[in-house]
């Protein structure tokens, strides 16, 4: 039976009356109603992870006929336990925007002309062949996403790295998670958090580092608030560069000057050592001390290269290094009072308190992103507050499969599904599983994301296929990269679900299936793999991104590597991919189990998920007889790093006298290409704005809603002022959400990046303001 809107409202009306009756007459029963609802087949509920952020909330999608019509939180999913945020509750509406891309289009002259999808796929394959024959294999590239499903990323890696032989494969998670990866790799030798969301119920103290969780990870923030209400003795500290809704809900809000979190973290470590709050047993058994290069640059020039040179140091040398970061000295750098620094250190140093640190883009989109990740790990390592329930340094993610697809499958230029292209044993494993000659896999990484778009602008890359992402909104210093993409001899393919500024630069547009219109898996922030089946059909000629890649691969002659049928390809790809992780350190759950459960955490060993890694009580990969084993490092010891404070790439000066900070709002997800098509979300937050401190606004003569021009050395945007809105920056800073394509704030931002992770810094550049 098909459920139309009117029937749905009548069903809701009856449900309301029955709920009211239940509260007035306890035990009342309406058996006929249940029979009607069940017999009519009006709604069938199926599980899926939410389409949006990296939290990985489980949702139940109500389906009537061929249409998804309702959503509720999945009570069987341990992530959200039946909760959803405002985006999650409306997620299915994102499928049904009026301007969905339903057919393939090809540029003919100045017009995009509809063509059968097979014709578009033929053209893509021939263009790849032509480009490689004319300008070499490293002139073709693919740019994917942390919204790729795991099979999407896996086949992309197999085609580009295994078959075509180029490492020109990157994903937008480089823009959001790369510093988290290099932070893990340099401190622990292995990627992804050691803890899990259960830490929230165990922790006594939460410190959020530059992380507005109330808007960006609202379900996890709700769990924190619920834990505080239930236990009564939980403390939440918001450590940030601007006041937000998270600040309002926290027990204490501490503001620091941009980039100076490095000094604050070092000062906390100084205090921990000065007060002898060090967990010496843990430190002596499980850590070593190191330093690396300093004054490492900002990557603003083309062809920028950097390689760190780690050196072992003694504890005494580390202690000496920290003398530059007494609380009083750090106060002068950061603006955080010495008293507040000592308070933070006392929370971390108190042996009776379990402490969890959360962070996301504030620490990762940072020209010293790897360093600040290292420094927060230092705090947890010095105090031994790690890898035990409630003691957790926890890097959150922003996209549903930044971990699952980009970090685990390895869709970055230097990565393979297991290991890196530079190591022969990792290339051998990939060549064997992929059934390609070893020589196909190039041992040299090519371009990270910013450099890849620079290469497109220079002409070193001529062909680029972009899937499930919108770089013509998200690239920093956007004007340069849009002009590059529009150059005459560039060929751009874009697979997406709605028109965006990125489809505007395309030569071919492929209609993509979205979320539950295909089968797939995501991997969330806590190492949880989440399967979803195809629940509804996609419109028109839409095709999954995985299948688009398979179709092109076959046209290029790689039938042997991509032999699967449409009925079984996701299962076959998953079982092939699992072979890369066949060890107690990373075993993945079998396909049959993923289909049944609302997510399964890896390492999945002997039928059990691993909640806390590196702790022998919970992690079977630890050496027998050990208590903790940081097995990513050869000696099983984590690294404590001496990393100094260094300033941002561009700071305010006399000409450009404000910091520009960018980010998100709760109603919209990323560039808004999906959430702005959900009417209730669009109405709630119809356009972007610039937050200005009230005193700065007064000096400019600007009131709420008046237009302000934000000007940097790279571009300008004019938009409405928001004064004393939901977020309030300190004096000398403005904040702009990036969800609105009408105001391309990344035309203003700077393409400086962390030299180790190559992740751009979207949080810090210099601008000036003009009242319009």
């Amino acid at each position, binding site marked *: 039976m098909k459920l139309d809107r009117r029937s749905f409202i*009548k069903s809701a009306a*009856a449900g309301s009356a029955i709920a009211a*009756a239940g509260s007035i007459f306890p035990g009342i029963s309406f058996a006929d109603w249940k029979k009607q609802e069940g017999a009519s087949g009006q709604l069938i509920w199926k599980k899926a992870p939410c389409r949006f952020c990296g939290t990985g909330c489980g949702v139940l999608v109500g389906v009537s006929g061929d249409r998804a019509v309702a959503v509720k939180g999945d009570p069987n999913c341990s992530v959200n336990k039946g909760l959803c945020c405002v985006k999650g509750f409306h997620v299915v509406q994102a499928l049904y925007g009026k301007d969905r891309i339903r057919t393939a289009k090809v540029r003919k002259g100045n017009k995009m002309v509809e063509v059968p999808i097979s014709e578009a796929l033929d053209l893509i394959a021939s263009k790849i062949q032509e480009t490689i024959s004319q300008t070499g294999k490293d002139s073709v590239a693919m740019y994917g996403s942390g919204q790729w499903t795991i099979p999407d990323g896996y086949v992309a890696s197999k085609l580009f790295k295994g078959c075509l032989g180029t490492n020109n494969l990157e994903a937008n998670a480089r823009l959001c998670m790369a510093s988290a990866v290099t932070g893990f790799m340099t401190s622990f030798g292995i990627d992804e958090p050691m803890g899990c969301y259960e830490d929230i119920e165990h922790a006594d103290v939460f410190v959020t580092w530059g992380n507005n969780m109330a808007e960006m990870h609202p379900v996890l923030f709700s769990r924190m608030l619920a834990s505080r209400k239930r236990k009564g003795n939980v403390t939440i500290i918001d450590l940030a560069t601007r006041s937000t809704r998270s600040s309002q809900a926290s027990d204490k809000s501490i503001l620091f000057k941009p980039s100076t979190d490095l000094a604050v973290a070092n000062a906390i470590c100084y205090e921990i050592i000065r007060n002898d709050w060090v967990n010496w047993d843990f430190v002596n058994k499980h850590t070593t001390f190191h330093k690396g290069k300093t004054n490492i640059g900002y990557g603003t020039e083309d062809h920028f290269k950097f390689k760190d040179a780690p050196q072992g140091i003694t504890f005494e040398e580390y202690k000496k290094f920290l003398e530059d970061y007494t609380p009083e000295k750090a106060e002068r750098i950061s603006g955080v009072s010495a008293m507040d620094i000592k308070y933070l250190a006392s929370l971390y140093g108190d042996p009776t308190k379990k402490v969890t640190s959360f962070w996301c883009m504030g620490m990762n989109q940072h020209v010293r992103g790897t360093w600040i990740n290292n420094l927060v790990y230092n705090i947890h390592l010095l105090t031994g507050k790690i890898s035990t329930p409630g003691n957790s340094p926890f890097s959150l993610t922003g996209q549903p499969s930044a971990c699952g697809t980009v970090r685990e499958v390895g869709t970055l230029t230097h990565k393979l599904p297991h290991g890196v292209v530079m190591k022969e044993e990792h290339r051998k494993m990939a060549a064997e599983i992929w059934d390609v000659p070893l020589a196909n896999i190039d041992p040299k990484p090519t371009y990270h994301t910013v450099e890849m778009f620079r290469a497109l602008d220079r002409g070193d890359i001529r062909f680029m296929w972009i899937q499930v992402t919108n770089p013509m909104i998200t690239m920093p210093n956007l004007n340069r990269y849009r002009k590059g993409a529009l150059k005459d001899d560039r060929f751009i393919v874009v697979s997406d679900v709605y028109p965006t500024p990125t489809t505007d630069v395309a030569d071919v547009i492929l209609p993509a299936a979205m979320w539950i219109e295909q089968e797939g898996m995501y991997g969330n922030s806590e190492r949880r793999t989440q399967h979803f089946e195809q629940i509804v059909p996609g419109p028109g000629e839409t095709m999954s991104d995985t299948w688009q890649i398979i179709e092109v691969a076959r046209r290029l002659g790689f039938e042997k590597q991509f032999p699967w049928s449409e009925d079984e390809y996701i299962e076959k790809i998953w079982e092939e991919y699992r072979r890369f992780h066949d060890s107690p350190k990373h075993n993945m759950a079998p396909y049959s189990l993923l289909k049944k459960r609302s997510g399964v955490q890896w390492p999945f060993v002997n039928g059990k998920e691993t909640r806390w890694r590196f702790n022998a009580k919970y992690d079977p990969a630890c050496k027998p007889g050990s208590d903790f084993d940081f097995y990513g490092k050869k000696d099983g010891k984590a690294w404590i790093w001496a990393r100094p404070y260094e300033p941002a790439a561009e700071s305010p000066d006399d000409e450009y006298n404000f910091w520009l900070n960018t980010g998100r709002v709760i109603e919209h997800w990323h560039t808004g290409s999906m959430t702005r098509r959900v009417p209730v979300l669009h109405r709630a937050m119809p356009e972007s704005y610039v937050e200005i401190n009230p005193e700065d606004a007064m000096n400019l003569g600007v009131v709420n809603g008046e237009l302000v021009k934000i000007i940097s050395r790279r571009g300008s945007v004019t938009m409405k002022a928001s004064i004393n809105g939901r977020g309030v920056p300190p004096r000398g800073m403005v904040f702009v959400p990036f969800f609105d394509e009408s105001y391309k704030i990344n035309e203003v931002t700077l393409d400086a990046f962390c030299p180790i992770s190559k992740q751009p810094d979207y949080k810090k550049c210099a601008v000036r303001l003009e009242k319009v």
Partner: protein
Amino acid sequence: MPILSYLALPRDGAMDQLCADLSGMEYCEIIPADNQEVVVLVTDTPDDKSEKTLQETLKKIPSLQSLSMTFGHNAEE
């Protein structure tokens, strides 16, 4: 095009009569409770005029003791 729902309570001993009265009326659907003298009534009228007429008719049903609204929706389609 209003859609409303109510909890309808019958006069003493008039549950069956109330169900018969309501289910026989145009624009009305009912879900009787199994174990209490309570009926869920859902009305779906095509326009405001029909809605007004229906409400007048409901008030005059002898078997009905009280009617409590639990849901209301009215939108142009």
